[in-house]
Structures are given as structure tokens and as C-alpha cells.
């Protein structure tokens, strides 16, 4: 009796599960979900009906001793089989991609250490150095309030950056060095760790900013007395960044003159 009604219940619940699954798949197809999702939705509906079936399944017979242990092992193998299969049908990223990427990075480094110098790169650096010097000169001749003409500082540092000017490179440095983790700029990034940067160009000169980045302890933003201890500005940039990069970054920072943002006043320390 019980067996029969259970068989019926299995049939009923499986049918409902399949119907729901098919509806899900059709809906997913209609909305252009990728096939992986369609499969997942279907399996998911089947999982649902499985739980429903198990909910009022009649008790099974107890197994004894070794058989019970064996059943447990089989149960575990089933679970991990499902798990591995599930993880494997999901789209896999290809570790070879990453290996290639790593290789590229390391090759440069090896070339440098093994050959002593990479002429091409050095030449490039010299060129940039000269340009940086020129702009620095221009800036200092214009004074602290110099407004550097920038075509568009807001345009994301796209492919054009390669030939772009120092300011655009500086903006890229801002991203690359992840200053945004602590500083808000254009309303984006950094939460509460450091001051907003939008008006820093009105508060600090080129030289002062450079000093701040090279030695963060040299200046302190007003109102950051308590936070100064905790989330203090990292002291790593002089090691991490090439001088040209710092110049570029600073050239970008001095252009930030949005007075509507309340960037705190810097105070000279020691």
C-alpha cells in the first residue's frame, strides 16, 4: 500500500518537476540565457522535486555494520561526483591564458636582470623624462596656480594614452597605483579612508604634491588627526614608482580644481 502510494507520489512530483523545469528552460531560451544556464535551471527544478519526494518517502530498511559503512562511502562518492561534475560543466577559464600572461610579465623582468639593460625601454624612458622636465619647467614658470591645458582629463585612459600627454598618463597612474582605494575623485572610489581629491590642485603646488607622495608624512590633511594613525597614506610610492611616473601623477593632480568639493587643507608637518 505505502509503497504503491509512494510510487505514485514520485511519479507526480517528478512530473511537476519536469514541467517546471521545461517552463524554466523555455523562459530562459526566450530571454537568451546561455545554454549552461538552461541546463542549470532544469537541474535545479529536478533538485526541487527530489527534495519534495524525500519529504514524505517511507522509511528505508536499516543496514547493518559493514553494509552501512559501505552505503555511507557510496553516498559520499555520489555527492563528490555530483560536485565535481557540477563544477566541470560550468564554463572553465583556461589556466593557459594566465600562464601566458605571467610569462609575458616575467620575460620582461628576466630580460632586464639578465642582459643588464633593455635599450629600447631605456630610450623610451629618456624620452619621457625629457617631456616631463619640459612640462615641469612650464609648470614652475607659470607658478603654483598654473592651469595645465588638458584636452579631457575625464576621458578614460584608453588606447590613446600611449601617445597622450603627461596628464593623461598621470590619470592612468592614479588608477594603476590605486589611489582610488582611499581617495574619492569625481565622486568615485575610496570610502572614508582618505580625503576627496577633486580640489587638491587649488591647495597644493606641484612640488608640495610631489613631496607628499614621496614622503606622505611631510603633509597632513586637516581633520585627519585620528585617521592619520589608522588609515594612513602608504609610504610605498617612492619605491613603487619611477620618478617620471610620479611627475606624471602630480601633473594630473594639479589640474584638479573643483572648488565645489571640500578637499581638506594640507598642513605642513615638521
Amino acid at each position, binding site marked *: 500500500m505505502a509503497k504503491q502510494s509512494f510510487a505514485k507520489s514520485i511519479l507526480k512530483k517528478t512530473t511537476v518537476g519536469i514541467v517546471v523545469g521545461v517552463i524554466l528552460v523555455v523562459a530562459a531560451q526566450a530571454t537568451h540565457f546561455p545554454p549552461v544556464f538552461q541546463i542549470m535551471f532544469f537541474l535545479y527544478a529536478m533538485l526541487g522535486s527530489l527534495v519534495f519526494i524525500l519529504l514524505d518517502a517511507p522509511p528505508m530498511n536499516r*543496514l547493518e555494520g559493514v553494509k552501512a559503512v559501505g552505503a555511507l562511502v557510496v553516498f559520499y562518492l555520489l555527492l563528490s561526483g555530483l560536485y565535481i561534475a557540477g*563544477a566541470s560543466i560550468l564554463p572553465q577559464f583556461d589556466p593557459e591564458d594566465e600562464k601566458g600572461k605571467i610569462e609575458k610579465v616575467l620575460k*620582461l623582468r628576466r630580460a632586464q636582470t639578465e642582459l643588464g639593460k633593455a635599450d629600447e625601454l631605456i630610450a623610451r624612458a629618456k624620452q619621457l623624462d625629457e617631456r616631463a622636465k619640459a612640462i615641469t619647467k612650464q609648470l614652475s614658470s607659470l607658478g603654483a596656480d598654473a592651469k595645465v591645458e588638458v584636452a579631457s582629463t575625464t576621458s578614460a585612459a584608453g588606447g590613446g594614452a600611449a601617445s597622450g600627454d603627461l596628464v593623461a598618463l598621470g590619470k592612468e597612474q592614479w588608477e594603476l597605483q590605486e589611489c582610488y582605494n582611499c581617495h574619492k575623485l569625481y565622486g568615485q572610489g575610496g570610502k572614508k579612508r582618505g580625503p576627496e581629491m577633486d580640489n587638491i590642485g587649488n591647495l597644493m603646488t606641484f612640488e608640495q604634491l610631489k613631496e607628499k607622495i614621496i614622503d606622505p608624512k611631510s603633509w597632513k590633511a586637516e581633520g585627519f588627526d585620528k585617521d592619520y594613525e589608522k588609515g594612513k597614506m602608504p609610504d610605498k610610492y617612492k619605491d613603487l614608482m619611477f620618478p617620471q611616473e610620479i611627475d606624471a601623477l602630480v601633473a594630473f593632480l594639479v589640474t584638479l580644481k573643483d572648488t565645489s568639493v571640500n578637499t581638506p587643507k594640507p598642513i605642513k608637518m615638521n
Partner: protein
Amino acid sequence: MKSADQLGSATIGQGMNRMSGFLKFGSFLALLFFPALAMAAGGAETQAMSVEYRDVPGIGSRNLIWIVAQQHLLLAGFVLGVPIFAWVCEVVGWKTKEPRYDKLAKEFTKLLTSAYATTALFGGILLFLLIGLYPKLMAYLTDMFFPSFLVYCLLFLLETATLYMYWYGWDYMQGNKKTFHLFLGFLLNLFALGIMAVPNSWATFQASPVVLGEGDAWARAWMAMQNPTWMPVNIHRLIANVVLGGFIVGAYAGIRYLLAVSREEREHYDWMGYVGNFIGVFGMLPLPFAGYWLMREVYQYNQQMGITLMGGFLAWLFILQAMLIGVLFLGANYYFWMGITYRIPGSENQYKKPVMAMLIVLLLCLGIWMTPHSLVASLAEAQKMGGTHHPLLGVFGVMSAKMTVSNIMILVTFMSFIMYWRAGKQETAGWAKAAKAIMGGLLVIAGIAVVVLGVWGYFVPAIIRINYFSVAQVLIVLFIMITFTPLTAVLMKSAKTTTEMVWGKMPIRAGYSLVLNAVMVILLMSLMGYARSSSRVHWHIYGVMRDTSEYAYSPALGYAAAFMSLNTFVFCLIVAFIFWVATLGDKAKAQPPRGSTVGIPGHSAPAMAGGAPRAGEKLE
């Protein structure tokens, strides 16, 4: 697949492909001038520094470390989770004066001595392997963290001494010395917390390093410890360890239940399974919140890392995570429902409809939780979906939806528990009707409020959603739990029991569901360990020290899943061994099973509704 991009961008901060020659040069120089390398080399041109990596033939150094580290971590989770479990049981036993809780606590504390030794053993193996296989990385970490190593050792001494006193003093410190014993248990957990927190800082430093200012070695180590993801990981792990402890106890009881021959044994292990599951479930309820907090910190520290995890090449991992958590929620609820059906005969029909409804709600919630926000599909798929953001994924995949469904899942699970608590009892208090009506009303209002806030969340700025709406949702759920628990306790105090709890009658699939829950938690821990180290991509220390070994890449998910299953299996074997060793002594003493010897009649403990079987009454 966009993984090459994703990985690339994570490497140097932003997309490599759009980097100019200048920047390539810059980052390359940055590498050269890197303090890490400078320091490594600067530690006087020692011999050791010429070797950056050593390999192990066959298995490979990374895989070997993976297995050993995972075993150590799982064991550590176990030996930190079990004392919490034991201490809670001891407190409950002390408060309710039910000796079986005290016995249960003691039974599990006994395991700790051998479990500790095993954990330390794996810790030692791990350390030697790390020093041998990753000398460069270890030199850097030692340089930075050395003072914390000393603290770690000190904590170990304190913990071990406390454990010995706690374990060997158990019988001695009964009666009026019990409070001191409880205090020892508290100390034990306090030191354990430290033992967890200190190495957490090394691991979280690798993911979210902060750069150090001046100061002596202690100040620098302390600063490095306080990195942005340290606290969230501490909290998330602490709670996860409670869950692990609870579910492992549950699984142990489940297995013993399956193997039990006598009725007394069945009763005892049925009850133990109940307590384990209960603690596991209660630990699980706050975990999603802790998880989202952790994720938020990761995003704040470094958006790129957050994106790598949630939207980048690891996005599919979170579908797997949602699946595991989903099955865990289903398994835990299922066990409650089984309890209603089999321990409280006669109530199954009364609760059939609500159970169905709850199951449907759970399944709906899980479906939404599984939907990722954005994903890496093949290029063709991505185009078909209009970029990486599918319109529907956009709706279901965002935090607002996930916070909402996880809140509802928590509510449903909590209600399963309340239902179980009330089953088989008839309220007698005059105000019972009114109280039940108020509770029902509150529940409906809370459910609606959570959903409304979730939907509304789409129309407000993210900052308002995160700071107010999500917080409000959590508070609503907490409010329900905090009001319902004492209210139900009071109601039950005066309730007349219509059907006695019957222990030892659960079908064997209940035992399997306990095993299932434990396996899910262990797999989950293994999966998230993989997530943590993959999120750093090919950095030892994110942004600071590159992994230049041949194993720097992240293994693909399917391959990793096989490793996780292997690790889970090995861990289960080790735990089984520990349990087996611990029961050898019992067998010699041939104590009668507790089910028949202890337990005093009285009201069930409100803290663990359903409480202990009233053993005396059931010995017909």
C-alpha cells in the same frame, strides 16, 4: 572566455591591453625596485635567497601545499569550533540542570586533546613545507610578521594549558566549582579566538596588504595585521567554525545513529544529531551577512579584486558556492521537518502545508541567489546576452536581490525551528491566541517589509541601499528572532504537551541528511579557500610580491573541485580516526549508553527547543 583579460587587468591594476608602452615600462621597473625584492635580496646576499622555489616531483609543490594547508585549516576549524560547541552545551546543561548536556560537552572535549595534536602536526608539516618550497615568500612574511609568530606561540602555550585544565578538571570542578570550570571554557575559547586571528592576518595580508610605515618590528607587524580584510575574515571564520563544529557533531551522531544496534544508542545519537544540527543552523543564520561584509571590504580595498571574484573569472565559483549553501539550507530545514514528522507523531498532517510552502519559498530564494550578477561567458554568448550583463541577471544578480533572498531564507529557517519547537504542544495560556496572532502578523509584515525594501533598493542610490536598506532588512530579521524566541519560550512554558517527543525513530535518511550537511560545509570551506587564494591571481602578496613559480596560475574550477573532494574525503577520514581513538576508552569501560541513564524529567530547555528526551518516561 575573457579570463586572459581579467587576469591581466588584475595583475597590474587595470587592463593590460590598454596599457601604453610607458606603463609597461613603469610597472616593470616598479617590479625591479620593489621593496619586497629589495628586502629579499637585501637580507645580506644569503645563500637561501638564491633559491626562490623548490619543487616536489610528481605532485608539484603547489598541490602538496594545497592539500596540507587545507587539512590544517579544516582541522583548525574543527578544534576551534568544537570548544565553542562544547562550551555552549556546558552552559546549557548548567543553566537547565540537565546533566546530559554536560556529558555531551565532556564527550566532545575529550576529542579535543587528540584533535589538537593532529592539527598541530599538520601545522608543523605545513610550516616546514612552506619554508622549504617557498623560501622567498616565507622570508618576506617572516620579516614582516615575526613578532606575531611569538604571540602565536604564546597563545598556543596558554591554549594548551587551559585545555588540559578544562579537560582533566571536568569532574573535579562540579558543584560550586562549576562556575570556575565555565570560566576556563570561556578562556579556552578566548585563546582559541586569538589562535585563529593571528594566522588569519598572515593570510589576509596576502590578499590585502597594507604598506608599512616606520616603527619597530612590533609596530610594523601590528600594522600589517590590521589589514582591511582581517576583521571581516575573522568574524566570518569564527561563525563558520561554529557551523563546522555543529555539523560535524551532527554528522558523527548521524553516522553513529545509522550504525546503532540498540534502541538506547539510537535515542542518544538521535538527540545528539538534533543538538549538532541546531547549533550548526544557528551559526549559519548570520553567515550571509558576514560574507557580504567581507565582500564589501574586498571591494573597498581593491575593486579589481572584488570584480575578479564576483564578476571575473571566479564568478562561476560563486554559483557553486550558492549551490552548496543552498543544499546546506535545504538539508538543515529538511532535518527539522523530518524531526516534526518522526519525533512528534501525529503532527505531520498539521504541518504538511506550511512545510510545502516553506520549501517552495526556499527553492525560489535559492534560484535567485544562484543567479550571478555578471559572468564570463564565451564571446558569442556574451554578445547574445548584450555584454556581460544580462537584463534578468541584472535584476536578480545584484546585491539588493541577494540580500533580500538571504534574509528570507534565514527567516524561513528560523520558522522551521519555531514550528519544530511548538509541534506536539497545546498552548494553555489565555493570551496564547492573541500572542500567536501577533506573531503571525509580525511575520507577514516582516516578510513583506524585507521584500519591499529589496525591490525599493533598485530605485535608490547604492549608498542609501547599502547603508540603510540592507541594514534595515537585517534588523527586521533580527527583530523577529529576538522577539519570537522568548515569546515562544514563555508560551511553551505553560503549554500542555499533547504528543511526547519520540527519539530514535528518525528514518535513516535523516542520518544521511546530517552527513550531507557536514560534507557541504567542508566542501564550502575548501571552495572558499580556493576562492581566497585565486582572488590574488598570480601574486603571493597582492600587488607586492609576484608568484614567479611555475604554479602561479589558478587551476580551473573542475580540476579544483576534484581536489576539494579529495581534501574533504581525507579530512573525513582523519576526523573518523580521531573519533574512533576517542571511543576506544569508552568501549573498555563499557558505560551504558546515556540515553537510558541520564536526563531528568522537566521542561525542555528553551535554548534548544525540543530539548532532551525525557529518557525516564520513555523507558516503557
